[in-house]
Structure formats: C-alpha cells, structure tokens
C-alpha cells in the first residue's frame, strides 16, 4: 500500500473543491478558495490571463494546460480565486465540484512520479477517475504573478 497516514496534513477540514481543466482534475482545500465565479465576471482579457476585480479582490485568472502552463484559452465557463501564502490567483475551469473530505482517500504521489517543481502532492480516486491534490504555492510559482495580487489581498484582509 502507498502511505496514507502521512497525508493527514493535506486533509482540508471543510473538504475539497475539485476543479477540472484540460481533462485534469485538481483538488484544492475549500478553505483556500475565496470565491467561485462565472467567466462573465472577468473584467479584462490579456494574452495569457484575465483579470477579476470584485469583493475587494484583484486577481489574475489563468487558463492552464494539464502541464500547468498558461494558455490563451478563455472560454472555460467558471473560475476560482484562491489564496496562497504569497497572495491570490485565479484559475479557469471547465467543471467544479465541492466534495467532502470523507469522500476521498488521499495517497501521496510516489516520488518516482514527481519532478522538483511539480505542484502535485497526492492523488485520490474520484468517481471513476483520478484527481490530484495540488499545492497552490507550487502552482503560483509557475505563473507570471506580480506583487499587485498579494498587496490587494492584504489590503482587503488586514491582519
């Protein structure tokens, strides 16, 4: 069996949000997701990202390939804005589904399947497919983000 006990730190108290894009399903802790919006709420469209402004949040919203590379595709119907330790960013999705922690049994991704900068930390059987628990910090490190997103979040959420 692949190790299970050591995935406890990945468990989200309030459950996960399963976000599907480019045929890939990522699991994020629900507590990290600040808002779920429809595409029509995007205010600006640039080459590799769009911009969302609302509720005191300013965030770049990316359409990612399954290899976590920003692509120009902007017709995904939904997006989430998530917070990570360095700020916030958005992610466009084809499908979104909230799931209870008890519905998934996470297993750590085997080290042989993981390159150094991969955001994938664990996986779980989700319905008939595999979903991957991803680190928001590691995804952010792959994106062209600027401090403006972090500052906007800090200003809207003073300590």
């Amino acid at each position, binding site marked *: 069996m*692949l*190790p299970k006990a050591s995935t406890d730190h990945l468990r989200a108290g309030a459950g996960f949000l399963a976000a599907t894009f480019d045929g890939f399903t990522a699991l994020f802790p629900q507590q990290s997701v600040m808002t779920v919006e429809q595409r029509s709420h995007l205010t600006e469209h640039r080459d590799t990202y769009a911009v969302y402004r609302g509720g005191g949040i300013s965030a770049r919203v990316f359409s990612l390939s399954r290899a976590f590379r920003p692509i120009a595709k902007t017709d995904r119907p939904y997006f989430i804005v998530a917070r990570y330790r360095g700020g916030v960013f958005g992610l466009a999705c084809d499908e979104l589904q909230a799931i209870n922690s008890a519905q998934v049994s996470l297993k750590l991704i*085997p080290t*042989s399947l993981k*390159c150094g900068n991969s955001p*994938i930390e664990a*996986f779980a059987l989700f319905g008939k*497919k595999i979903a991957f628990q991803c680190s928001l910090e590691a995804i952010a490190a792959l994106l062209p983000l600027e401090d403006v997103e972090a500052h906007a979040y800090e200003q809207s959420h003073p300590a």
Partner: protein
Amino acid sequence: MPTSKAIRLDAGVSAVAAIGLHEVIEVVTEGDMAPVPMAPPHCRELLQWRDQWIPVFDLATWRGLQPESPGRFFVVVGYAADAGGVQYGCMRVPEFPQIVELSDQQACSLPVDAAWSRIAISCFKGDGKTVPILSLRKVFQPHDQSQKTGAADAAGASIAA
C-alpha cells in the same frame, strides 16, 4: 555451486536489467492507466492494479530509447519501502520477462555510465551481456528529485570520454 534466480527485463540493446525473482508479484498486459502531469518521461503514469494505483517505470524510456510502441508487459513488483512496509510498482517492458539462474561466477562490475549506479546494486554477465540488478527502492523512491534520466547520464559519460 550456489545459485539464485532473477527476472531478466529486456527493453532494448542498452536497456537490459534484472530484478530478484522474489520481488515479482505478477505480469499483467492490461489495466487502466492515469497520466500524471509534470512527471519524468520514464515514470509518468499510474496503473490500476487490484485495488490500488501504482507507478509505472518504463525501462526503455529511462535509457533514452524511443520504441515504436510502448512496452505491453507490466511487471508488478513489491519492495521494502524507506518508511517500512511493502510498496508496489510496475516495470514496463516490451518483451515478456525471463527467469534466469545466476551463480557467483557470473558477478561483474557495473557498466561505466553513472545512470546504472543510481538504481543498480550489482551486476552479472549472461548471454554475452552485462546485466545490472536493480534496487527497486532506488527505482521507485529516488532521492534525487530532479529525476535525471539514464539517457542523460549516458550522454554525459560519452561526452566526458
């Protein structure tokens, strides 16, 4: 003369290796596969086996070979994990694995390219070939997260030479 048995995995001219017979659980030819993004080219899929998903290590790809079609045999293996307990993985090869009987007289040094030394623990000569014996723990729990391929090491060795 003391002998032991091993399984020989043949994935191409420069990709012949062996593992202990006791480490092999079964050979399967089909199963659901799940690709894993941002994984190294030689180990980028999970195979559904029984009630779990296990990593698939493609020996030919690890050696930098480019076979016309991916190997169709999945050799499911079990090994003692770093953290204790038994872990499972799978070696993907194009040829059905062979059982070979080894004696101490067949022992030899590892090939000179550094790639094998990262995943092999010993070596023997058989049928005119040098055959590294793999440590499955090193194959499936590499400590080097950069996951440099065997092909990259082999290229480096030839440049250095």
